């Protein structure tokens, strides 16, 4: 839902980031207001996951330029856990397995951290079990998964559902879902999409990273962005995704080439 007067939740300006001195994000600009659903598409390796991890504060990436404001606050100055507690959520493309750490305990500790940050009281084990059982229904997950170690031995689809369960518990303001639809069967896709729609409201926003129109058939985006070589090359409405489905990404190369030629021509001037 687009409301030009809705508060800005996330404002990314000319964001640049590298890993091992290798630039990956090369000037990303993006503004997200409350109530909006954004989709980011783009070829493999274009930097989509990197963008999501930099926003969440992954230590492997160093920010080399630009800024990110989260509700007006400097997001990049915060530790990853602080970002999560104030309402930023990243659904991982590849959720991590953590042997020996019980899923239930993990979810409880995480949920209570977020609750404290929102000025709510912590939940004891019993109250939390009630809450988690209720939220399990959003993703139609078997309670047996609570007893297992975090993601350990979960199938690809089960891991993705566990991500959405975490999102349902943490009630983020900005949820970034990195290919949450990959690896899901048709039913699971419907369940996960249903969960995302259920959790999307006028006060929060969602950034979906996806390769497939089929997700956007069930979650209608307000904006679609195409990422290429570490920046957002084009932004449009939901039609842009359909156009990509038809035309593929070949046009990206031409546009990138002209962009880079322009930059190359400009560089000497900047130096001088």
């Amino acid at each position: 839902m687009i409301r030009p007067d809705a508060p800005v939740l996330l404002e990314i300006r000319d964001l640049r980031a590298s890993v091992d001195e290798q630039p990956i994000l090369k000037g990303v600009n993006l503004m997200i207001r409350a109530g909006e659903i954004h989709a980011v598409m783009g070829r493999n390796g274009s930097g989509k996951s990197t963008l999501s991890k930099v926003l969440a504060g992954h230590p492997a990436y160093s920010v080399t330029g630009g800024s990110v404001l989260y509700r007006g606050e400097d997001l990049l100055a915060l530790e990853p856990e602080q970002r999560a507690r104030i309402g930023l959520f990243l659904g991982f493309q590849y959720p991590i397995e953590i042997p020996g750490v019980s899923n239930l305990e993990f979810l409880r500790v995480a949920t209570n951290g977020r609750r404290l940050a929102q000025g709510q009281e912590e939940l004891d084990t019993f109250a939390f079990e009630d809450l988690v059982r209720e939220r399990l229904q959003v993703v139609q997950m078997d309670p047996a998964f609570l007893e297992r170690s975090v993601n350990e031995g979960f199938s690809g689809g089960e891991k993705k559902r566990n991500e959405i369960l975490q999102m349902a518990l943490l009630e983020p303001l900005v949820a970034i879902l990195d290919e949450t639809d990959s690896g899901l069967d048709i039913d699971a896709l419907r369940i996960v999409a249903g969960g995302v729609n259920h959790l999307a409201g006028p006060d929060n926003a969602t950034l979906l990273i996806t390769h497939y129109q089929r997700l956007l058939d069930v979650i209608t985006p307000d904006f679609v962005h195409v990422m290429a070589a570490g920046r957002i090359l084009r932004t449009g409405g939901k039609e842009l995704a359909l156009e990509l489905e038809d035309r593929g990404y070949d046009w990206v190369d031409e546009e990138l080439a002209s962009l880079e030629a322009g930059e190359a021509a400009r560089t000497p001037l900047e130096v001088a």
Partner: protein
Amino acid sequence: MVAVSATEPRHPLPAAATAAPWIADLLADLPAAPSAAVARARELLAQQPLPSRRQEDWRFTDLAPLTTIAPRPLDPAEQASSAPAAPLGPVAEPGRLRLLLDGLRDPLDGLNLPPGLHRLEGEALQAALGRSLAAQGLEADWPVLLNTALAPRVLALRVSAAVAPLLELVNDVGTGQGVEALRLLLLLEDGASLEVLQVQRAAAASATSLLLEAELGRGARLRHGLLAQGHGAASLLAQLVVSQSPGSELDLVSALSGWGLVRLEPRVLQDEGQAATRLRGLQRVDGRQIADTHSQVAFAGPEGRLDQLHKVVADGAGRSVFNGAVRVPRAAQRTDAAQLSRSLLLSDRARIDTKPELEIVADDVKCAHGATVSRLQDDELFYLQSRGIAAAQAARLLLRGYCDEVLAELPGGAAGWQPLERLMGEDPTP
């Protein structure tokens, strides 16, 4: 003043190497040897220096911390008055039989032993004591000599059937200072089974020598958990010496933490093969602590199985040693042995030495081994942090998960002793 028996050598034999001063002082302070065996052990001990790092078996482990402990026998009364008053650890629940091995009383006194469990004494005891040691040629091993020389308190049990309650053996030295020795003997007859949780604790500068011998008859099952929660000034030398008959199953689980020096030697002999041995070990070092596990499993016949996992957490300037010997001679065809050692390095100043020592002569065998040393994984930490869990708490969760793989294998009643909290050095609720 106790009279010194004639058999006690006050002076080492002329040709012998000089005893370590600490041993000489300790021997001089002991009451008279109650038996010829004890006297003999003292004599042998007096003739040799402490094991040193020049010996392969002690290459990484310096016994210096032991010699900082007062070289005198620990007074059981002091131990009792300093050990935390009741209740020791968790309240004894139904379904467990708790024996206090504090030396103040006969732990079996006035007790109705449950069906299948019997006191072993007299000639039967004399015949069995030392048999497992002899089968592995360990009689003159330094830690064995030390244990014998100290005239240990002995608890010997015969197991004739499946024993229902968990046998909980508790030795809490508390703030007692000095040196003590404990000797246990478990004879499991054919088809018998027993679960033992042995809790060893110290809270000051004491040294405990623990020697367990166990014999498993055909089809017998023993599950033994050693929960050793020490102190930075305390030492523990423990040997678990087991003989297994065909068809028997042995589970040895150990969790060692907090000791200035701990050396654990599980020694298992499958005397005709065809038995199952499962070893689970976890040791944590921090500060300047040393923890050393030297395990040995020998197969004297075919078709034996070994499943071993040894885990280490090394923090501070701690030092961890693991040496896992597996002996598979020609007679041990179709042995199936797997050994995995996993170490978690939490500090740049900590040191980990880990060495599998596979001696395989038989040709038709499966022997797998692996050793890993890692740090907490950034991706795992980040995943937890991205859910709002602070870095320090995330690290603690990961560490607990890591340790729990072994701790969860301790016998059922162990949880009340808060093995995880103590191992992590967290303040357990009293």
